[in-house]
């Protein structure tokens, strides 16, 4: 193929050269002929001038020397033939061909001949014309010769090229192709043990092949080395992994132990907290009751005794709370729920608590309306503030002054509590923040408090990212100031864990008893529902079939309808659809009561409620109440659940005293049993109980659809975790702590939830 290419190139080159030569020789011929014409012409001048044709012919005959000239003529200035020449001596009379005007000479190719015609000018005067005609044989001969040589050269060079190519092929191309092949195979199979075979000649391709083989050898070595390194690495990795695994296991073990220890600790704290607080609660509760109820019936001394009991109990409670707090902080189990809130939200409550004490000691409390907000735990903040304020009040004599002031530097809010009290010695100023230490221990002075307050306060402040310090001079007063992070921009005031409740309105009873239409084919079922409803103050009408139901409903327009599903003569769903289609009955709430559980279908068709037989009275009434409003019926049955009989006593007493009807159970199981038989208006639930704790009861209640609507309140001594708070927040109306004054709060919430107790309603209707 290469030969073809070179051949073509050569042919083109030769053709070009031949063509060039042809053109050049033609030009040369013209030039030659022109010169000959010139010479002949100038030699013929005198012949023309002196009219001597013979002389002219002699001159022309000199052209015999050029064999290519076939004829020559001289014409006079007038264009008449003067002399002529022919190689063969023949004489033709040819007229002078026309010469283009102005041109001295003109040549043209005609019939394979070249003709040159040139004017003879002597001393500026045209004297005549020379005409020479030549054949082109010379050129064609030359051309043929040239072409022949070119062809021979071409053929020779092509053959030579072929020869060289084949030699080259063998010597160079083959080894390289072989090399390329080997390379391809090595790349494809990654087999570095292959080698290219040398040519055996000591030439460049051979050198290349040897070099290539060396390279392959090196690559092979590297490969092997790499493989070994890789293997070793794998082994090391395995070893390390095994090490890590064992280390991990140990750590896990330790972790578990640590977790268990922590769990035990928190469990201990929790149970301690509960165990300690519950009896205390009873002490406080009953002594409160005693103080309240029996002040008139007791002697002064007895009243005093009760006072002592109360104070002692309170102090003990405070101490327990402090110890538990401190313990929690120390073991890192303190949970803070930090939020942004304004100082003006938290301060009033604290101030109102200590105000009685301040009034008693005639100490004036100064405070301004604070505009700053902090990012901290709301409860703990109040605790800190309360601690500092109570300390201030404690150590300030009568008629003194206590001041609360807030300031901010942008990122921190600082609150200062200053008093005009007895002051603190400089050596005591660090001491007072330690546990169980009070200033002036050696001196006889006011010895109230547990000695833990400031220790706890300090830790609380520091845990929330602040600092606390004291500035004081003995006899001049003290100023305690603490900093907390400033509130975040988005001031979302989180509500306290008190839910908004759904207000249940009493229906307008002046309309008379609401009518319920009971639809069921079974007489026993009808009777049962009717007794439930009539007992609760509803008017009842019964029908035995779906068809009847729609008619009756249209006639009577009941307030609600209970509908059975499994009835002969048409499934209740059809009737349900009918009710909803019919304009007059479409608005009536329908409570489906059925043995089967087909809630989806019922609700899709427009049922308001779905109860599964056997129906709990409470469930039915709740449902009705939900859709109709409460009926005139004393709404005051409250179930109190607590394993501690004393708490039960206290609570139920409290409830009864305002007119509610409390029912008491001492375990979760009993509670559920009770709830299944009797429907109550509210549940008061303790959390820590054996067997089934409050959370489980809550869960169980949630599972029973009829009880879902019953408001649940929690009364507990337990410190709640974040998670527990969340659960309770979701499932209960309100939370009350046994160690705080829960009574009024609880009654207020209950009133909101279930309505005021009958005694309180004496003013209104029954």
């Amino acid at each position: 193929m290469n030969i073809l290419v070179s051949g073509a190139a050569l042919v083109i080159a030769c053709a070009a050269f031949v063509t060039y030569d042809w053109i050049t020789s033609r030009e040369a011929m013209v030039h030659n002929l022109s010169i000959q014409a010139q010479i002949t012409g100038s030699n013929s001048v005198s012949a023309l001038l002196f009219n001597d044709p013979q002389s002219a012919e002699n001159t022309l005959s000199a052209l015999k020397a050029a064999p290519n000239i076939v004829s020559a003529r001289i014409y006079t200035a007038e264009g008449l033939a003067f002399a002529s020449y022919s190689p063969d001596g023949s004489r033709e009379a040819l007229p002078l061909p026309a010469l283009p005007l102005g041109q001295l000479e003109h040549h043209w190719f005609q019939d394979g001949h070249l003709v040159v015609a040139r004017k003879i000018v002597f001393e500026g005067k045209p004297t005549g014309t020379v005409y020479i005609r030549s054949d082109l044989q010379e050129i064609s001969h030359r051309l043929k010769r040239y072409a022949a040589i070119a062809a021979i050269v071409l053929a020779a060079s092509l053959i030579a090229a072929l020869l060289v190519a084949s030699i080259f092929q063998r010597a160079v191309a083959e080894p390289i192709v072989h090399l390329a092949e080997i390379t391809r195979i090595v790349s494809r199979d990654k087999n570095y043990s292959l080698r290219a075979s040398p040519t055996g000649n000591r030439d460049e391709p051979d050198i290349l092949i040897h070099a290539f083989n060396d390279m392959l050898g090196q690559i092979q070595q590297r490969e092997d080395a790499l493989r070994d390194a890789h293997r070793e690495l794998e082994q090391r990795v395995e070893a390390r992994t095994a090490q890590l695994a064992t280390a991990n296991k140990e750590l896990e073990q330790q972790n578990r132990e640590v977790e268990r220890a922590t769990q035990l600790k928190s469990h201990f704290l929790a149970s301690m907290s509960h165990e300690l607080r519950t009896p205390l609660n009873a002490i406080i509760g009953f002594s409160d009751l005693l103080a309240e109820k029996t002040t008139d019936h007791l002697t002064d001394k007895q009243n005093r005794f009760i006072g002592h009991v109360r104070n002692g109990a309170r102090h003990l409670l405070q101490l327990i709370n402090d110890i538990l707090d401190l313990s929690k902080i120390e073991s890192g189990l303190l949970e803070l729920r930090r939020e942004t809130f304004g100082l003006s939200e938290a301060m009033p409550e604290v101030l109102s608590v200590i105000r009685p004490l301040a009034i008693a000691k005639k100490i004036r409390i100064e405070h301004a309306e604070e505009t700053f907000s902090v990012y901290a735990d709301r409860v703990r903040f109040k605790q800190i503030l309360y601690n500092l304020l109570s300390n201030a009040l404690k150590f300030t004599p009568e008629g003194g002054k206590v001041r609360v002031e807030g300031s901010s530097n942008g990122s921190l809010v600082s609150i200062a509590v200053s008093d005009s009290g007895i002051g603190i010695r400089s050596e005591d100023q660090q001491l007072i923040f330690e546990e169980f230490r009070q200033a002036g221990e050696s001196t006889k002075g006011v010895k109230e408090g547990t000695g833990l307050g400031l220790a706890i306060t300090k830790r609380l402040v520091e845990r929330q990212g602040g600092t606390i310090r004291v500035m004081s001079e003995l006899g001049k007063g003290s100023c305690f100031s603490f900093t907390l992070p400033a509130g975040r921009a988005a001031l979302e005031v989180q509500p306290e864990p008190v839910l908004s409740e759904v207000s249940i309105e009493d229906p307008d009873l002046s309309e008379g008893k609401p009518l319920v239409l009971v639809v069921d084919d079974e007489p026993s079922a009808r009777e049962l529902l009717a007794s439930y409803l009539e007992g609760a103050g509803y008017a009842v009408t019964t029908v035995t079939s779906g068809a009847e139901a729609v008619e009756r409903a249209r006639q009577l327009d009941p307030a609600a309808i209970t509908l059975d599903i499994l009835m002969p003569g048409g499934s209740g769903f059809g009737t349900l659809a009918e009710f909803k289609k019919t304009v007059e009955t479409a608005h009536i709430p329908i409570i489906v009561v059925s043995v089967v559980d087909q809630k989806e279908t019922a609700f899709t068709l427009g049922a308001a409620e779905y109860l599964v037989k056997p129906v709990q009275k409470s469930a039915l009434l709740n449902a009705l109440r939900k859709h109709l409003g409460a009926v005139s019926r004393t709404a005051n049955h409250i179930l109190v659940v607590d394993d501690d009989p004393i708490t039960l006593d206290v609570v139920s007493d409290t409830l009864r005293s305002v007119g509610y009807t409390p029912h008491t159970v001492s375990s979760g199981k009993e509670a559920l049993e009770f709830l299944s038989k009797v429907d109550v208006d509210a549940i008061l639930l303790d959390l820590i109980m054996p067997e089934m704790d409050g959370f489980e009861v809550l869960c169980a209640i949630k599972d029973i659809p009829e009880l879902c609507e019953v408001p649940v309140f929690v009364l507990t001594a337990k410190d709640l975790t974040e998670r527990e708070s969340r659960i309770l927040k979701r499932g209960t109306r309100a939370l009350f702590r046994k160690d705080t004054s829960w009574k009024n709060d609880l009654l207020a919430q209950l009133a909101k939830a279930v309505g005021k107790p009958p005694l309180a309603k004496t003013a209104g209707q029954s």
Partner: protein
Amino acid sequence: MRPHGSSGIYRCTGHHRGSWPHFVVLATLSAFILTSILHAQSSPTEYQVKAAYLYNFAKFVEWPPQVMSSDSSFNICVLGRDPFDSTFQTTIAGESIKGRNVLVKRIPRAQDGAGCQILFISSSEEARLKDILDVLDKMSVLTVSDMPQFTRRGGMIQFVTEANRVRFEVNLTNAERTGLTLSSQLLKVAIGVRRG
């Protein structure tokens, strides 16, 4: 000039009347005259040709420089009875030779030929030729004549009419003796070249 192709003899044929031969003679004569007149108009006269040749000679002759540079005209002179008449006007009027204007002069005596480059000696001076040539010998003048034996008697170029054509004969020695150089081109077309 003799008329063409006529021998002047006519032959009698067969019967002839008295007035018939006269008419023929008349016709022929008039024909001759006509043709000669016509011919005279189409072809140059003898002296026209010679005048042209005189002019042409100058193109092939080199005069010694001292002769040429005397004045700015090229003088062709005629000595003796001038046969050219007005032919010079028609043939070489306004021409120039070697860059000089051509002047035609008629000189009365040979001595006046000093400023001439070409001198045509008329055949009327045949008797006095030797004296004329002796006078001219010291001057580089090209002597031309059509008298017979001119070149033998010391002349340089002699016109010869041959086959109705004006030719000329050259005596090279005579020319070169006075310092004149004659081109071989001229010699080529001469019918004869004498040396000596």
